[in-house]
């Protein structure tokens, strides 16, 4: 018998019923819900006369629709969504972190920082970026509203086991290169469809040296490679992070848990993956997207590509289409593109390390007059931590806005959506057409690149800002 992967081990441990020729019935340890994808699921339960099977394994958050400059729900449609969630949580006895609660924030930032996500767990949420939680060695994936309803009613999901892909990063990340650059470079290499129907396990030196925050950034954007989920084996970095969270197990329970977690990593020599990719991380530069899918990215010292030079017909027409929307001409240096907006935040890069990285660059400097910059902490806990470190003083002194927590400018669903033909350097995860507002052009980048770009008003490598 061959060895088992981390994915195999978690999967096996959660199969309630596994029959040949049928999808496995998988038990879900944690169901995260929010106001944007749950109302119709609760309504389905009501119509069928069903109850929530395990409200105690369900945690609700207000994040997608909330404004970040006031605690009042200013948009009627957004308020309706949030109020619906409040009613549903009240009715079914589900814990809800409301706008104004000290613990509120983006669901994928809050659940890990509270210690609700542990290695070996299964986690789902009606949100594609649920893959974030794979950073803890949990199997976490996004689902639609029908599956949300299924999990509310049964705490399980019937699922065929996805294929597995091992992505190994060799070497160490160069100074100034972050896990955001690593994941953007990976997607650029394998494509926005490159891991379709797979679960990725990340490994290698570059990964094991990443902090939990950086690992969450990687796993978060795994969905942008088309994967179902992405995960990283738990190690001492994971345990150390968890030991500082308020809800991780304590005492004897902690010891038993760690013993179980240490058995989770893929068996070293003979674990079988369906696919494998290796990637040299040691010569990487910061990456920035130039197009309208996350695979269309280039090193910051590179150029906007010339679609006529693409050999693949489909990539050629996709690139031409993207450049038209992005109003970019081939051959232009990436680091010369002028921008007018900078967004730091989101479930991808709204954590304390991200704010520290941005503040380090902005310290003693000013945001260019042509640029509007907003900094949106991923949670109110991150916001408090940042204020304890006086990071907010740095942002405010530079002329950036210091906001409350929510999904904000990552998606055009709340008052932070941009208006008009704006060009934004964003630390979020999707550069789709109109993602941040009806005509907005988005360039995805790391917090350090975003901060450097805010200072100069054009896309800028952090290394060129004298430290």
């Amino acid at each position, binding site marked *: 018998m061959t060895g088992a992967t981390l994915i195999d081990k978690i999967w096996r441990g959660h199969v*309630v019923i596994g029959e040949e*020729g049928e999808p496995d*019935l998988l*038990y879900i340890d*944690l169901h995260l819900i929010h106001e*944007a*994808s749950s*109302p*119709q699921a609760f*309504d389905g339960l009501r119509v*069928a006369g*069903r109850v929530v099977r395990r409200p105690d*394994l369900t945690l609700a958050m207000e994040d997608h629709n909330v404004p970040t*400059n*006031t605690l009042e729900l200013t948009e009627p449609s*957004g308020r*309706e969504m949030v109020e619906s969630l409040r009613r549903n*949580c009240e009715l079914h006895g589900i*814990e809800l972190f*409301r706008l*104004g*609660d*000290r613990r509120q924030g983006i669901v994928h930032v809050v659940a890990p920082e509270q210690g*609700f996500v*542990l290695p070996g*767990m299964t986690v789902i949420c009606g*949100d*594609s970026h649920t893959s974030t939680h794979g950073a803890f060695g949990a199997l976490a994936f*996004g689902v*639609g*509203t*029908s*599956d949300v309803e*299924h999990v509310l*009613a*049964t*705490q*399980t999901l*019937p699922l065929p086991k996805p294929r597995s892909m091992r992505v190994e990063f060799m070497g160490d990340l160069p100074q100034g290169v972050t896990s955001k650059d690593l994941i953007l470079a990976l997607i650029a290499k394998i494509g*926005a*469809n490159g891991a*379709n*129907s797979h679960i990725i396990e990340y490994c290698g030196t570059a990964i094991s040296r990443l902090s939990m925050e950086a690992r969450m950034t990687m796993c978060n954007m795994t969905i942008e490679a*088309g994967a179902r989920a992405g995960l990283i084996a738990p190690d001492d970095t994971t345990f150390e992070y968890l030991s500082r969270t308020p809800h991780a197990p304590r005492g004897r*329970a*902690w010891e038993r848990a760690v013993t*179980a977690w240490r058995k989770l990593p893929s068996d070293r020599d003979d674990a079988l993956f369906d696919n494998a990719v290796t990637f040299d991380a040691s010569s990487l530069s910061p990456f920035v997207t130039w197009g309208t*899918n996350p695979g269309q990215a280039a090193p910051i010292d590179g150029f906007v590509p010339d679609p006529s030079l693409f050999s693949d017909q*489909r990539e050629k027409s*996709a690139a031409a289409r993207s450049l038209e929307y992005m109003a970019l001409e081939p051959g232009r240096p990436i680091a010369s593109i002028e921008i007018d907006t900078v967004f730091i935040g989101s479930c991808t890069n709204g954590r304390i390390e991200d704010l520290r990285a941005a503040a380090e660059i902005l310290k003693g400097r000013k945001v260019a007059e042509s640029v509007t910059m907003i900094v949106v902490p991923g949670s*109110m806990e991150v*916001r408090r931590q940042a204020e304890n470190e006086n990071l907010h003083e740095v942002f*405010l002194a530079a002329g950036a*806005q*210091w906001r*409350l927590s929510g999904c904000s400018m990552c*998606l055009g*669903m709340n008052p932070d959506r941009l208006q008009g033909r704006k060009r934004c350097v964003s630390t979020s995860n*999707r550069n789709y*057409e109109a993602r941040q507002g009806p005509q907005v052009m988005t360039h995805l980048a790391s917090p350090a690149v975003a901060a450097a770009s805010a200072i100069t008003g054009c896309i800028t490598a952090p290394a060129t800002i004298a430290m």
Partner: protein
Amino acid sequence: MKPFVSLVGRGAVLRIDNVDTDQIIAAEDCKRLAKSGFADALFARWRAKPDFFLNRPEYAKASILIAGENFGTGSSREHAAWALRDWGFRAVFASSFGDIFRRNALKNGLLAIQLDGALLEWLRRLVEDNPELNISVLLKEKTIAVAGESIPFTVDDRARWLLLNGYDEIEVTLTKAAQIELYERAREEWLPTHLPSRPEPSNVVRVRP
């Protein structure tokens, strides 16, 4: 649900790869509590262009969307499937799909059907040349019948079984409640649970607009 066995309809060709769910329906248009009424929001921004495929008279009666590669990538919003269904589509053909979209579509009786790239291209040309062509989708046989040809397709087996029988998946799973309960008794006691607590209002200051 009514069983879904087969479908006969016309195709409409969308020659764009990597169509993400933000294009199918913008986040702003998802801010509703209902599961239907999203037809107007379908491809709303792209539809503003007169030559967009949905605006072409020859595709007015189409019920089969013939897309490209990686259709429905991105967000998990089921509203994308609802919007396509509300518009009148009952099937989407693509060479690959965003995984979450495919699952969502099938759960709403919108057949997400994967076709080999070369076959898909053949079919796209066929429909572009003759938009009035009738296409039959035979779910039981997992084949498409068109222009005298029979094309095999791939579709999720479980979804196919549910659709053919008109079963409600939750109802099916609830018949396994005893096994779920058995599983629950053996879960580790250190796994986290959440009970409703009183919200803790924080003293956040208003920020500069």
